[in-house]
């Protein structure tokens, strides 16, 4: 999975379908990157994610809780229609801001 760290912000770019077939690797890569960098803003670029279920959401929510405890924030970018419905239904879109691009998300990092 593609990850990029820039000035306190970690950009994460998962691809494909986020279900239990990939959540272990997804969680592990995220934990490793959060451990080795000082991250105050985590940006999930979901533009290449075509499917997500509650297991995939759980990984995003878990990192959200972790960042929140440390005073950091989590943003979403490039959410596709079928993924958006799941995010809305779960309430995740009400706690995480969504931006049109990674640049915009980074600019609003505050």
């Amino acid at each position, binding site marked *: 999975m593609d990850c990029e760290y820039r000035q306190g912000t970690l950009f994460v770019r998962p691809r494909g*379908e986020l*279900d*239990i*077939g990939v959540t*272990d690797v997804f969680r592990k890569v995220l934990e490793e990157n959060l451990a080795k960098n000082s991250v105050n803003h985590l940006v999930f670029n979901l533009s290449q994610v075509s*499917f997500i*279920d*509650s*297991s995939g*959401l*759980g990984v995003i*929510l*878990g990192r959200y809780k972790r960042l929140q405890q440390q005073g950091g924030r989590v943003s979403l970018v490039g959410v596709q229609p*079928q993924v958006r*419905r*799941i995010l809305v*239904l*779960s309430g995740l879109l009400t706690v995480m801001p969504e931006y049109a691009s990674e640049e915009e998300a980074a600019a609003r990092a505050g």
Partner: protein
Amino acid sequence: MDNQAKLEFKSLPANVAFARVTVAAFASQLDFTLNDIEEIKVAVSEAVANAIIHGYDNQPDGIVTIVMTISNGTLELVVGDRGKGIANVKKALEPSSSTDPERMGLGFVFMQSFMDSLHVESAPGKGTTVTMSKSVGSSGKKEQLEH
């Protein structure tokens, strides 16, 4: 045209995607919208993931079964496992009632939201059977009712 198929597979995480594609291919024999098919895929993912994670505690040697039936424009799915079962089904069906702190407790909520009907039968130590159905044209009707 009425139809029926049955899929059985090992309780491996990679088989969630496999089950999803298979059920979607079967469902496409009805005139579901692409949106309906996406919803069916989420419901299948949740039911199968539950069988693997909860039913079989992530042990790969369990068998998950899906019986798919098409009858009169309705798709019925019965997802079954012979795993540890659910002691209190009523409680399990409530939102955020996960027994696993790493999970969201939204699986049954999604199944209920995306299918027309959901019925869960379970016996501790024996296994769990999740029966869901969805009819062609029901999403439109649902939304109309909500407005």
